[in-house]
């Protein structure tokens, strides 16, 4: 009898211990932000969940904004950054990462947050320029001296030219690449969809390696020496040229490309819970200021403010750019038609089509 009681006690104790341990782990991982904001009642902390190539941009911008906010309101603000693939970042927020703001590569990834009730409807009209404070475009990066003589999209499907671009199904950035090629083919063939599809299909036949992300594709092209041309975001192309030396690569600006609009949004559910709406709103608005725009331009993103645009006009040549809205409509429709399962991109690879 006594023994039974004893083992029961041990079992109970160990259960309590297990639960305590797991609870401990959870609080450590999940609500760090709350804990530290409670320490100093005046200080505030924001979490900006972004995608990969904006790391340097936000490192500089966060410092600038913290200084600006302290001067304006006398409040100290610390901003934490989280970077990763755009889709993966969106999923982390859906699964409970306490992001105050998201700054992602595709509107589609924020639409997904809206579907889960984290972001309110109409987020894209909340800030200027479709809530995209800075933009970019898709350009072609070729080896120095352009040995294959690549001048425009047409040259990518010519003879033995090898094209490097990541897989649009796993990379948000690669979707813009695909759409840029599509937009070009549409325009050239008087909006003939079938011909556009043919062109894009031919283009992907010239792709020897489909990396899963944009940085991986850059590595394949730059480090492994595979392919004659890399389809890349302008900011990534400029960064590659700057980091690896202008003696190795040239940037080719095609006759027509797409205006890539990486959007920003407040995660309404989180800011309401944490009471950080005011500072989060200011954080995103300040991206449109002279200082915010200059930082974006210095990190090779195209500014939207005219005065900064003029200052950096040598860095960003004028190009004919179409927008997603003009050619494809909303992200939801685009995703459905082109990139969802059995969409056009999948059909490209199914034998017999």
């Amino acid at each position: 009898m006594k023994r039974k009681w004893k083992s029961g006690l041990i079992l109970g104790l160990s259960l309590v211990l297990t639960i305590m341990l797991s609870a401990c782990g959870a609080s450590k991982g999940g609500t760090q932000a709350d804990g530290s904001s409670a320490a100093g009642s005046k200080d505030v902390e924001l979490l900006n969940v972004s995608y990969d190539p904006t790391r340097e941009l936000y490192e500089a911008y966060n410092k600038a904004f913290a200084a600006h906010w302290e001067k304006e309101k006398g409040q100290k603000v610390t901003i934490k950054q989280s970077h990763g693939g755009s889709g993966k970042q969106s999923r982390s927020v859906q699964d409970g990462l306490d992001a105050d703001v998201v700054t992602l590569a595709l509107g589609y990834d924020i639409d997904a947050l809206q579907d889960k009730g984290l972001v309110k409807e109409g987020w894209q009209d909340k800030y200027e320029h479709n809530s995209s404070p800075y933009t970019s475009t898709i350009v072609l990066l070729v080896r120095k001296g352009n040995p294959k003589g690549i001048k425009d999209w047409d040259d990518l499907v010519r003879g033995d030219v090898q094209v490097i671009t990541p897989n649009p199904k796993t990379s948000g950035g690669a979707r813009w690449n695909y759409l840029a090629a599509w937009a070009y083919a549409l325009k050239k063939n008087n909006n003939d969809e079938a011909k556009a599809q043919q062109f894009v299909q031919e283009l992907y036949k010239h792709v020897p390696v489909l990396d899963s992300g944009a940085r991986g594709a850059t590595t394949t092209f730059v480090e492994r020496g595979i392919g004659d041309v890399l389809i890349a975001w302008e900011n990534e192309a400029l960064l590659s040229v700057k980091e690896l030396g202008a003696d190795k690569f040239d940037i080719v600006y095609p006759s027509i490309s797409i205006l890539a609009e990486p959007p920003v949004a407040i995660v309404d559910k989180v800011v309401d819970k944490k009471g950080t709406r005011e500072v989060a709103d200011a954080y995103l608005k300040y991206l449109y200021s002279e200082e915010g725009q200059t930082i974006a331009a210095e990190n090779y993103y195209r500014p939207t403010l005219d005065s900064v645009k003029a200052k950096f006009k040598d860095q960003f040549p004028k190009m004919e750019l179409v927008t997603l809205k003009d050619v494809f409509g909303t992200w939801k429709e685009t995703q459905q038609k082109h990139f969802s399962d059995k969409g056009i991109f999948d059909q490209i690879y199914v034998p017999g089509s």
Partner: protein
Amino acid sequence: MSQVQATRKRVLPGFGLTMGYSVLYLSLVVLVPLSALLLNSTGLTWEKFWDVATDVRVLASYKVSFLCAAAAALVDLFLGLLIAWVLVRYEFPGKRIFDAVIDLPFALPTAVAGVALTALYAQNGWIGSLFEPLGWKMAYSQTGITLALMFIGIPFVVRTVQPVLEEMDKGEEEVAATLGAGRWRTFRSVILPELIPPLLTGFALAFARGIGEYGSVVFISGNMPMKTEIAPLLIMSKLEQNDYAGATAVALMLLVISFVLLFVINSIQRWSRRRAF
């Protein structure tokens, strides 16, 4: 009275407690996540599930995943036996370091392994450039995938075979020799039968690891649909589209096939062990 009976029933005390613990932790770490996986795919009807799980592209990716994993495990089987043999039977300088290096693929983040292997086996890499003129593409082909999986799987075979080899009774070999058996005959009829169960275990582990491997393979495979696309990559691409149900459908299919294959291997192993002793 009852106390005496309780102690007599089992050799070691505390079965209830340890069993409870085992079940608790097994549930927390393995069973609950697996049932969550199952639950996630219930968003699909049976037809939709079947449709997703047997799409042409998905089928092609199963083929790549299973064939490359099997090929890699098979190579590892021979390579692992060889390495274990050398490590157990011979003395040479640097043996300790060699022994420790075997475990590194366990510790190394697989993505790092993938990047390193790709750098070596790409067309302009050290090794890849040697094979390129022969027209043999190493990276960005199924050869590349198999290479990555071999790297990931080799410790499993070595580490399961090694202890058995170490504890093998030298006396039996000597007896075989005095009875007139040559080295090869001794190996075939005395040593090998004892090694078959651990070799099969090593094979099964390396194979299972290879099927699910993602990190190292995405870099070296080139990810071409229908050609070098592995099943885990398709799962990732479905997740990227927020298609949780579709992703779990593919994952579930992968799990079921793997389970059946591993069950078969396990049965063979049990059968061979019974014969060996």
